[in-house]
């Protein structure tokens, strides 16, 4: 399996012969074997030159950039290497055909809701009193099917999210990490900062997986397409935010891996310090590598691979008589 490289140090990345070489400002140098790299995440102040971008393009390595506040800046998305005019056409046609678009958009909301419920039920069985929130979300789940427009569907999704986030204070056993509501840009408290960071990572993993398929990341179905930025990855991320991101958040907070000391208060709201960022990514990467037995494939697949499989299912939904069903956790 190819690896994900996370760069936190500042320095310069360059091409040495046929591999990558990272020269850190603190004097440590490192060769990065290029054949084994899936993608690179850049958190530090790293200098790139055109030769590197050219090299990364031939090696089909995607690079995701984050700024000092751990905000996602954007990605270097090398020219598409899996171009299929046929697939692009199918994707665009599905976007245009409102019934088909609604069908798949509902699936994303449904997948997100069902995975959120799995988590809530898990903690409910462990003695957290979440029954009323579970019932609330279950009733919203019934509403998804009868939404006849993307706008109203988004509205239902919003209600589900609000109930779901309301349960976080019961799940997390650290009083520093409670919140009244979801706040973004800037996040107003520790938990919001962590959720924002986690979500932006899930978006980028989804983008990386889309890059390995024939889908066009610019054409989302639930998140309106504006033909400028990526939106399909936001759609797919809905399914995996609870499965991969939120579960990691609960793990790092309940095990005390991350606490309030890992955050900074500054003019831009609350930010996660590099130390916290690293610790979170370590646990997240473990989760991504963890495998489960896939019921239909009869193979062990990692959580990371599940994102790719979701892309394949979407491709099949767009091109043939295949009923798309979002991935839902077993337990």
């Amino acid at each position, binding site marked *: 399996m190819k690896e994900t490289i996370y760069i936190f140090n500042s320095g310069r990345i360059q091409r040495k012969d046929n591999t990558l070489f990272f020269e850190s400002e603190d004097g440590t140098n490192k060769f990065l074997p290029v054949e084994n790299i899936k993608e690179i995440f850049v958190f530090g102040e790293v200098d790139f030159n055109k030769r590197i971008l050219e090299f990364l393009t031939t090696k089909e390595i995607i690079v995701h950039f984050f700024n000092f506040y751990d905000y996602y800046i954007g990605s270097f998305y090398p020219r598409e290497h*899996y171009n299929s005019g046929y697939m692009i056409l199918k994707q665009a046609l599905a976007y245009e055909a409102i019934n088909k678009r609604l069908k798949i958009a509902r699936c994303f909301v449904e997948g997100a809701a069902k995975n959120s419920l799995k988590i809530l039920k898990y903690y409910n069985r462990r003695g957290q009193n979440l029954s009323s929130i579970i019932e609330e979300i279950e009733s919203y789940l019934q509403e998804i099917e009868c939404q006849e427009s993307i706008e109203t569907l988004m509205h239902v999704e919003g209600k589900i999210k609000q109930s779901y986030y309301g349960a976080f204070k019961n799940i997390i056993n650290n009083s520093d990490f409670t919140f009244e509501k979801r706040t973004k840009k800037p996040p107003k408290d520790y938990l919001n900062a962590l959720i924002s960071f986690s979500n932006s990572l899930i978006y980028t993993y989804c983008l990386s997986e889309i890059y*390995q398929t024939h889908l066009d990341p610019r054409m989302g179905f639930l998140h309106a397409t504006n033909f400028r930025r990526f939106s399909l990855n936001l759609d797919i991320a809905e399914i995996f935010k609870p499965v991969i991101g939120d579960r990691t958040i609960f793990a790092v907070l309940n095990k005390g891996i991350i606490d309030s000391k890992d955050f900074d208060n500054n003019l831009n709201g609350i930010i996660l310090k590099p130390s916290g960022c690293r610790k979170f990514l370590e646990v997240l990467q473990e989760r991504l590598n963890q495998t489960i037995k896939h019921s*239909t494939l009869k193979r062990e697949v990692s959580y990371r691979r599940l994102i790719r499989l979701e892309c*394949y299912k979407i491709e099949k939904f767009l091109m*043939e008589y295949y009923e798309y069903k979002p991935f839902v956790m077993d337990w």
Partner: protein
Amino acid sequence: MLISPSIYNAFLICQRQAWLMSRQMVADQEFTYLDIGRLISEESFSRERKEIYIPDLSAKIDMITLKDGKYFVAEIKKSSATMQSGIEQLKYYMYLLRLKGVEIKGMIKIPLEKKSLEITLNSSDIDYIEKRIREIIEVLNSENSPLVKRIKYCSKCAHYEFCFV
């Protein structure tokens, strides 16, 4: 309509794979079997000219080899297991080259087993190939992809996850 050798070969194994390839739905390149295939052809016979690309046939010929003063078009295989499809592939190359006015003999090489086998193209082969081409065109022109049909080859195919998920 000219059928490229890669699609012709895929069709011999699986119609669905050929259909997907015809729409540039190529398989995930992270797949190790593909790497093994690439490495074998890169590492063996490094002295001879290899991988000759004939653009207007979109054909990639593994190598041209010289034996007893005669030229052969050669196909490199991983093992005898895929011998039959290797022979069919090679005959198709020879057929395409013949269309271009090049009469040439063929040879299958299995470097890992140190074997080679000479192949000739006769008129019944040509009839068979032309019948095949008509079949392929009919399948590829269909708007719908051929349905998933599980065969022995599936578990080793780069499209496995795509088909069975």
